[in-house]
């Protein structure tokens, strides 16, 4: 085991605790006088209309989808970039082909209007 990863492990255990400490302190220091109106949903002073439900856009899903595909392909490229000194020209071209595939994906999503925000 690399010692830096042990350190990161310790940090992973400590950071949430440090972030939680002020919140917990504040929770006990502050007054606590809950009442139903205070704890109700806050919607700019208006009463909650209907069943508080908006059907959200498919758009959000599409952005996450294109992001997913890009993310996976980009992670593949990192080892390629790290190994750059070992690579012959042919291997570099293969990497470029991979990037061209990414561009193709982007162009498709673009032409298909999946990246447009519309109302």
């Amino acid at each position, binding site marked *: 085991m690399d010692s830096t990863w042990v350190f990161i492990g310790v*940090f992973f255990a400590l950071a949430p605790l440090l*972030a939680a400490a002020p919140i917990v302190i*504040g929770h006990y220091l*502050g007054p606590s006088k809950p009442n139903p109106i205070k704890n109700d949903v806050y919607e700019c002073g208006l009463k909650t209309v209907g069943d508080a439900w908006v*059907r959200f856009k498919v758009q959000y899903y599409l952005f*996450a989808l*294109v992001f997913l595909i890009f993310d996976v392909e980009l992670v593949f490229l990192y080892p390629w970039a790290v190994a750059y000194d070992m690579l012959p020209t042919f291997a570099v071209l293969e990497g470029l082909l991979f990037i061209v595939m990414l561009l193709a994906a982007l162009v498709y999503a673009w032409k298909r209007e999946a990246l447009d925000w519309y109302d």
Partner: protein
Amino acid sequence: MAFLQDPTLIVEWLRQLLLGWGLSPALTSLALYVLGALALATGPLLWVIFLIWFERKAVARIQDRLGPNRVGKYGLLQPFADVLKLLTKEDIIPAKADKFLYWMAPILSLAGVLLLWPAVPLGKGIGGNVNVAVLYLVAVGTLSTFAILVAGWSANNKYALLGAFRTVAQMISYEVPIVLALLVPVLLARSMNLQAIVAAQDVWFVVAAPLPALIFFVASIAEVGRTPFDLLEAESEIIAGFHIEYSGMKFAMFFAGEFLHAFTVGVLGAVLFFGGWRGPGAEAYPILGLFYLWLKAFLLYFVIVWVRGTFPRVRIDHLLDFTWKFLTPLALVVLMATAVLDKALVRAGAWPRALGLLVVNAVIWLLAQRWLRKVEKRLEPPMVAQPGQYPVARYTPPEPQAAEGD
């Protein structure tokens, strides 16, 4: 004063001290790790308090105001007063909230930013030395995204959820150019280790890769959610975004996380593109390297504050178009050009290679500008400034329609 040349002596001294107290070696190591982690985490957390004062003051001056000037000299004690006030505020938990997730979100939000720090090299031989550091930064960044999604969901408020959706859509969209831009320094240094990336910068990478540096910087501002990309706090549109139901210290944690994240972006930009801790004398005296890193990071952070004080907020469709239809293709093209040229110039020295890449970057930038001009002509007339006329000359109110649903 030998520790000025070799700060690991401090660690050795501490180790001997603890061993002298009769602790077992394993326990001593653990105690040192915990101490190191505590120091590395509390440092930024305390620094945030100063950042908040600095940012308020700087933005105020940009906007011709005075800023905080009542508590202490130059209002320096203002953030402490704010912390005291926030600590004694009532902690309101909405009755219908998903309690556990509601508590987790602000903690995750701040912890996600703190966790970026162990990967950062602070000087020669001190600070992070993670072998996959660049991807580690991306991985930890996902925690903040999750925190926002959880915050929006757990409050059980449709505006909060809407704000969270918008913010997350924005964050993941801007993550693509960031990951692409990060690939370029990795390619130039042949390593994902930030320490190795700093070591490879005999010529700062901003010379060889000015466009990736710019893309990284702009996209990071958007990722953090600062003006001009602060749709998550669009008070006029979705009241306050995902943290509408948060108050007191929990709300403050989101804010502290945002400020610290902005500064961390400065640190990462300095490490990746501006030579990190490198500077005259930093090899011999690592403490000096820490100072250089801090100086570079602070300058970059100042630019972020400057941008915040200057630019108006962009519209959400422009925001998403900007990343998907401009930054991402640009980053892809730059990456391809860098890859090809780097292989072609592999025998050249550091400076010729960097200058060659600089020329290529400039050419790509000019082409992108021309392309932008072409696109600009096709935009709706009110959006383009005509000579002798303000850009908002003809405003026609949109037809009334439902806000979000389809």
